[in-house]
């Protein structure tokens, strides 16, 4: 019998970067091995089985759900209210899918794990695969604001809500998987989840395919006699881009043999562009916006920087290592698990612009150091981020969880 797997997420699909390429690759590889795979994702107007182009419009579910929840008090915190409306819609859609047709559900966030746990048949194994810490991101936002009164009260409610969702999502799943020990440790310490309930294995990347992508070129060329410093990712507070910009302002007082490319988009883009202008960095920093040709940028990069205040295991660092860039990461979250300091890259204390400036200056000073770190990173990355290894471990875990669920679950 062919195993049938449902990959699902509460987040919008498809999208640039992040979870989508990971789910897409997993589905493609499993299908190549003869398994059946469906991918369920979110969209502003519907949930959809992406691979089947089958849409479940929210307008068929929301009016009734909303009429029952409008007067419950939930609506006083709009973030929670809208999230709950969307979660219950997902539950209604999920229950309509005849979940018993699947052998396993693999959710890529805690919210969809909560949703599926409430509607799935008892014996059907459910894996939750968080790619970050939702409450951690909220906490970081709270720390960065000196908000008071109403907003502050709402933020506390939102933090409590996401902590409960995260705990519930982890507890209700048959098994959890994360890509970093940092996330596993947080779940064990924060929620008392048993460590053996959470498998840890790093993300995989099709390194052969990526190597080919690195040889393609876009319309951009690197300026002569300048080294290229790159960041790629969402332009949000937790990525620590402000720290990078301030470090670059200090670097500019020392030397001008560099430029910086910031590739990606997000709610903070305008603010960061203004900050760069205020620090007289308009000529030195280019904001390229969201791009689908990130490998072209990586191929032209000398130094890749991931200055995050909180991060799990960003694909952009993996890409930079595969491109042979000299990589600097902060010591936030799971980043130190990706780089061995002074062997495959450099690690700076998070939120420390002086430390980051010092490391950038050191790398710009020494071509030899850049070359050695880049070469070691490339070697490390080709083995460590192997997609075959990732898929083999994932399939082994699927089968283990299916056996355990079958042995232990009560009959329906």
């Amino acid at each position, binding site marked *: 019998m062919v195993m049938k797997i449902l990959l699902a997420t509460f987040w919008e699909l498809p999208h640039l970067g992040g979870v989508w390429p990971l789910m897409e690759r997993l589905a493609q590889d499993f299908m190549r091995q003869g398994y059946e795979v469906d991918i369920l994702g979110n969209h502003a107007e519907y949930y959809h089985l992406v691979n089947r182009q089958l849409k479940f419009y929210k307008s068929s579910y929301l*009016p009734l759900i909303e009429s029952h*929840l409008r*007067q419950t*008090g939930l609506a006083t915190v709009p973030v929670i209210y809208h999230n709950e409306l969307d979660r219950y819609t997902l539950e209604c859609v999920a*229950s*309509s899918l005849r979940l018993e047709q699947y052998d396993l559900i693999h959710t890529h966030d805690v919210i969809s794990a909560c949703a599926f746990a409430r*509607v799935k048949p*008892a014996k059907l194994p459910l894996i939750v695969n968080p790619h970050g810490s939702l409450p951690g991101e909220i906490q970081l936002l709270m720390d960065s604001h000196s908000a008071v009164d109403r907003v502050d009260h709402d933020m506390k409610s939102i933090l409590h809500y996401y902590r*409960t969702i995260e705990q519930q999502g982890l507890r209700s799943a048959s098994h959890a998987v994360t890509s970093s020990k940092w996330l596993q440790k947080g779940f064990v310490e924060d929620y008392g989840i048993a460590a053996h309930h959470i498998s840890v294995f790093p993300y995989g990347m099709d390194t052969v395919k990526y190597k080919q992508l690195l040889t393609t070129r876009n319309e951009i060329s690197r300026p002569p006699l300048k080294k290229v410093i790159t960041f790629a990712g969402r332009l949000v507070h937790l990525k620590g881009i402000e720290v990078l910009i301030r470090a670059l302002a200090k670097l500019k007082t020392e030397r001008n043999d560099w430029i910086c490319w910031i590739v990606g988009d997000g709610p903070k883009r305008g603010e960061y562009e203004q900050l760069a202008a205020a620090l007289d960095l308009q000529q030195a920093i280019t904001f390229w916006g969201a791009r689908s040709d990130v490998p072209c940028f990586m191929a032209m990069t000398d130094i890749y920087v991931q200055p995050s205040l909180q991060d799990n295991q960003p694909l952009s660092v993996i890409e930079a290592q595969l491109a042979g860039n000299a990589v600097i990461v902060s010591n936030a979250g799971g980043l130190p698990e990706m780089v061995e300091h002074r062997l495959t890259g450099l690690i700076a204390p998070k939120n420390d612009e002086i430390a980051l400036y010092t490391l950038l200056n050191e790398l710009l000073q020494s071509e030899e150091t850049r070359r050695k770190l880049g070469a070691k990173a490339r070697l490390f990355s080709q083995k460590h981020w192997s997609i075959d290894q990732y898929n083999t471990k994932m399939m082994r875990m699927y089968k283990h969880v299916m056996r355990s669920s079958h042995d232990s679950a009560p009959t329906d």
Partner: protein
Amino acid sequence: MQVPGSLYSNLFLTRPSSDEIRVESLIWNRIIEHVPDHYVIPDLQVVAPFVDTNSLITRT
């Protein structure tokens, strides 16, 4: 076929704010048919602290 939403009140722990909502029976019958017996909206395990208890229907 459009039917009154009130036909599906058993799925909810709260009363509707309007009795005039009409829904597609094909879609909602499928939900009723497939959700577990104990399934209700809202999920009090998560949102109990945010829900006004007076709004909940007492079920015997």
